[in-house]
């Protein structure tokens, strides 16, 4: 499944990083501690978080993540958006809380 399909299936808002909408997704990771994500996320995963600092983009790039899903209707700041566009790693937004969106992502990837 690619990011485009994910956006469609989970009704996500594409906030930035449109260049990466074709990125393939092979799994998900949920954490708000960036040190944990850096240590444990794997390439191609969709990362669900509420952190908005631009370091999320550095870590997504380092770990070659497919996209970032920001929860609860939160909006990343302009520097984070800029970095997402630069890296071509999409930031997707949802009004849902982590529990719900992670459950729906899990179901989708299992299906």
């Amino acid at each position, binding site marked *: 499944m690619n990011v485009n399909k994910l956006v469609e299936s989970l009704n996500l808002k594409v906030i930035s990083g449109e260049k990466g909408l074709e990125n393939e997704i092979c799994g998900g990771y949920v954490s708000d501690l960036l*040190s944990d994500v850096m240590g444990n996320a794997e390439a191609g995963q969709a990362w669900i978080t509420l952190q*908005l*600092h631009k*370091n999320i983009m550095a*870590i997504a790039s380092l770990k070659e993540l497919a996209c970032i899903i920001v929860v609860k209707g939160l909006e990343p*700041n302009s520097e984070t958006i800029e970095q997402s566009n630069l890296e071509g790693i999409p930031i997707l937004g949802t009004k849902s809380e982590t529990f719900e969106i992670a459950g729906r992502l899990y179901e989708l990837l299992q299906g």
Partner: protein
Amino acid sequence: MNCYKADLHIHTVLSPCGDLEMSPANIIAKSKEQGLQIIGITDHNSTLHCRLAKKLGAKEGIFVLCGAEVTSKEEAHCLCFFENDTELDLFQQWLDEKIAKIPLDEERFGYQLAVNEYEEIIYQPPYLLTSAIDADIDEIYAKVHSLNGLFIPAHVNRPANSLMSQLGFVPPDLKADGLEISKHITKENFLKKNAYLKRFAFIQSSDAHYIHLIGETFCMFYLNEPSFAEISMALANENGRHIKMTPD
């Protein structure tokens, strides 16, 4: 240039995790015993004990830096210091507006007591002071600097509540007046792993929550006199003012 022994990160009994013995009067007495000449009073998201500590410190020849250890939106702890009461109060107002108002559960989190110099309780903040405020590290830096203060991310290498735990690494373009590293690492070893941070001034402090820990970790400030302006200069490594982790 004189050398001053400094411990810039000390909690009082106002912090829920601060031991009941940590009254401003006891902290000043212990600081004197430890030969500290400069201390920072840094309760979680509160400056309420600073003035009393400053007054008591002045009597004993101890310079007290007034501030707080602020919990950012990312839950990274940052030391913030101010020169004057006016700015300290404006910052306190801002903290009061920004902090999440979670009622304090004393059984779980501990007591938050503001006391006077006779150790009588004068106020108990009703909500948990360790909660995050609704401002990220860049916004906190901007606020602190708009009030001519100093912004020093705390124990940046610690595995919890630090820039590195919350944000993975210290942002290379971070705006800060210095970085605090925990007592578990030397500046030398920290910079071996993080050479890109060598532009920063470093401090090491006790982060004392218990009286016996005050001054256990410290650093040395080389200044003409202990003052906010001189300490600012040392953090900026200006005019010969500087900081060392151990005395010469």
